[in-house]
């Protein structure tokens, strides 16, 4: 299952940028290389994220959240 971003709808995995410290734990554990980190910018690449949640488990400061009602889309292989 891959998620898709739509304006106004909540995503399944969301990084709260205001609280993020940009430490890179999530990037290090992401098996899909779906997180992009710059000096003080971070984003999940929607097309690659599989909602596996490993980034949430590794985040030392609880800034990645899982929204159960987030938007999902079937993967097209």
């Amino acid at each position, binding site marked *: 299952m891959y998620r898709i971003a739509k304006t106004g709808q909540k995503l399944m995995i969301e990084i709260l940028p205001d609280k993020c*410290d940009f*430490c*890179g*734990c999530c*990037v*290090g*554990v*992401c*098996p899909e*290389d779906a997180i*992009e*980190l*710059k*000096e003080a910018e971070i984003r999940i690449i929607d097309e690659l994220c599989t909602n596996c949640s*490993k980034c*949430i*488990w*590794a*985040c*030392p*400061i*609880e800034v990645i959240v899982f929204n159960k009602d987030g938007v999902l889309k079937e993967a097209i292989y």
Partner: protein
Amino acid sequence: MLKSQYDIIVVGAGPAGTVAARFAAMQGVDVLVLEKDRDVGYPVRCAEAISKRNVVPFIEPNDKWIAAKINKYAFVSPNGEEVVIEFDEVNGYVLERRIFDYELGRLASEAGAKIQTRVYVNGLILEGEKVCGVKAEFQGKQIEIRSKIVIGADGVESRVGRWAGIKTHIDYRDMESCFQVTAANVDNVDPGTLYFYLGTNYAPGGYFWVFPKGDKLANIGLGISGGDNKKRSALSFLNDNMKKFFPNASVLTQIAGGVPCALTLERISGDGIMLVGDAARQVNPLTGGGIGSGMIGGRVAGEIAGEAIRKNNLQLLDNYHNAWMKERGKSHLIFDKLKEGIFNISDDEFNDIIKKLKKIPKEKRTLGKFFVTALAKKPSLIVDVAKVYVV
């Protein structure tokens, strides 16, 4: 100004990157180091402790980047008992990484490498599987810089390796999720002692540290394994420990971070690519220390890369993995076994180990005795460690 082509491009200007750059540039080859942040050495995502013998081969010790000189190591048991192991001479430092990293950058530059900050590398130039340079964002423009070798020194969040087809992502259970404050007004901390608190109440699957930085300043932090962080975060554990031990401390810096406490990657080089430091998982898997081993990895990679350019023979990069294993990788196999064993020791057993160590007269306590006492709790570990030696 940046040229459109270099012999070697190093991505990341931490200790591993700048040491790699220095040892390559010393051979007269053309080296460029690119750093994504605006500063070399800042922000400091590090507890800053290092053994003296890991510093000296790379830079002459200088008080301007030494915050504390260490000759004592204190281990605190889950029930709060402390045992101190003391050495006759200073054998460790707590660094000021922002100055230390700057100095390493200066030394690389003096050797002939060029460093540029605020360049965000966002891809590699690939010809088939061969790495031929980097794509990057610099001063608002997307640029391409070609090179014969790219050295990925881009830390725990390394993506350079992935772009080159090397599987670098780390199992979340091997990722130590860390949170640290640098605090002032820290009481009852000896300026020459590193403190390690062991136990699930302080930091499950890791440890809680207090590393002095002089004048009642200290780095106070902890790392816990991803498996434990999943249940309760590093931040939450640190809040508790601060309340318990240092309620009056001021927080001057707070920072999150991750330490890949795993074995070095099976593949740390490829066609035109090498990885060093945290990016190659060259961290000591037991202690989480990565400055010293990162610099060693950087030197080994830099020397090989420089030689490969001089002799116009990129096949030499294939020697990197073996050279690293000989220098450090093999001892990391042992540390990894010890890590597995030590983090499986229960709180009760830790209480017992510390109690036993306290009975040994002060002058006879050694770090070796600590591990021997710990190993006595898990005799099967001795077999594991022996296996590593035999292989």
